[in-house]
């Protein structure tokens, strides 16, 4: 297997793909947003329970490739307890990682996605769940779609 491909499919990603965290609907959710990628049919819904400005609980469901599923799974573990502002900041860092391959040392798990940057067609897979989550935070009634977000 090439170095690029083993960078893309890191153990962390394979693990989240095989055993997704926080997968399923959230009965107590007060925010839901749906994301889809029309070019490949990947779908991801993010369910949130906002407690004030803070994400008290978060889950995702949907279907898609290993990158999109692992990314959404890992995202839920990172966003729990964060405010909307903190979530946006984390997404900005994540976006930087998947588009440049540069990962700051302090962001350990998200750095697993650095390998995505050598596969530009897969960046949208990695960001799908994040777009849904940010829309849910904004209470955006529109489904997140990779066609209206740049990446």
């Amino acid at each position: 297997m090439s170095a690029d491909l083993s960078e893309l499919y890191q153990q962390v990603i394979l693990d989240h793909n095989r055993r997704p965290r926080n997968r399923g609907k959230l009965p107590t959710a007060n925010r839901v947003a749906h994301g889809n990628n029309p070019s490949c049919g990947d779908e991801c819904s993010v369910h949130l329970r906002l407690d004030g400005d803070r994400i008290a609980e978060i889950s995702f469901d949907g279907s898609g490739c290993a990158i999109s599923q692992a990314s959404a799974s890992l995202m839920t573990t990172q966003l729990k307890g964060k405010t909307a502002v903190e979530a946006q900041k984390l997404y900005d860092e994540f976006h930087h990682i998947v588009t440049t391959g540069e990962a700051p040392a302090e962001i350990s798990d998200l750095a697993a996605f650095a390998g995505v940057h050598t596969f530009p067609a897969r960046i949208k897979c990695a960001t799908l769940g994040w777009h849904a989550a940010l829309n849910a935070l904004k209470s955006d009634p529109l489904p997140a779609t990779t066609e209206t977000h740049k990446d």
Partner: protein
Amino acid sequence: MSDLARTRADFPILHQQVNGKPLVYLDNGATSQKPRRVIDALVHYYERDNSNVHRGLHALSMRATDAYEGARARIAKFIHAADPAEIIFTRGTTESINIVAHSWARAHLKAGDVILTTEMEHHSNLVPWQQVARAVGATVRYIPVLGADAEGGLDYAALDTLLTPEVKLLAFTHISNTLGTINDAARLCARARAIGATTVIDAAQSIGHARIDVQALGCDFLAFSGHKMCGPTGIGVLYGRRALLDQLAPDETGGGMVVSVTYEGATWKPSPERHEAGTPNIADAIALGAACDYLDEIGRDAIAAHDHHLAQIAMEKLSVVPGIRIIGPRGGQPRGGLVSFAFAEVHAHDVVTFADEDGLALRGGHHCNQPLMRKLGLTSTTRASFYLYNTAAEIDVLVASLRRIQKFFVG
């Protein structure tokens, strides 16, 4: 040199490495590669004959016009149309179907009418009909696809109840781009004709792979793209029976398609000019004619046999890969030159990314067939689609790659 080796030598693009491995191009359902002769036809036109057609009296314009109209006649012969005027050049299958939807269907359909199609249509032969139905108050109905894996093909028995007097149009694909199912086009057209319904065949997947005789099929319209039959992108054809085309209002108007224009209005030329407003895609039409020559020299029966042979080998070897689910006709059954499959635990996009490492060009996704995917309980499949230059050894590369992928993700 074997025939197959000679055929492969005709396609310059095949002789390259991808990710350090020989290219194995199995994405022919999306687009085929181009033989040297088609590429040369484009170069020759731009280097020697480039000029606008029809209205010029100088030497280059006459040469360009002769070549362009010659290509039309060549394509008419290729599909056994009665008259070159029945060949309208378009951008491709999608535009061809949209012309029928805009010009024919909106003029002829009314509230309460039914457009009958199938559950296995590509979005390009589905969405235009939904749009027409919405505009005129008609209904779209679907001929069901049988079997949990769509292995049973179309439910022909259902035609008895579906073909009611309200059905004014039957639109169906000749070969499914997702399943590989070969539909009985002549039978479907005969049934539709018996109740006076107009027929449209989406021949995108069959045109370069099998002998097509529009008169024997008995269709009213037939749509296809050049790029899936060794021709260039951006050129396609709408075939229509002359009597229908001459009555059809033009979808686009402008130069080249009028007899007379006054400040008050205009009158239209007959087909094909009436349906080709503006400067046409001259170079690509000429190169499509060259593609017809090429395919007929190889022989479309030989191509169909080669497709069938590769599909059967693929069915046999893929069916024993752990965790695989193949959709469409079962092994041994007639099938176009493609196989679509899914792994329970590996998404098609991961398959395609991994296979690319082995030099394989595959396609993963919903194949513009979302309703069928949903019906089969799938979100995506991986598709390997074959053509005249593919070899049995390439299927071994595919199978080895899939086994490796399955092992990596599932263990």
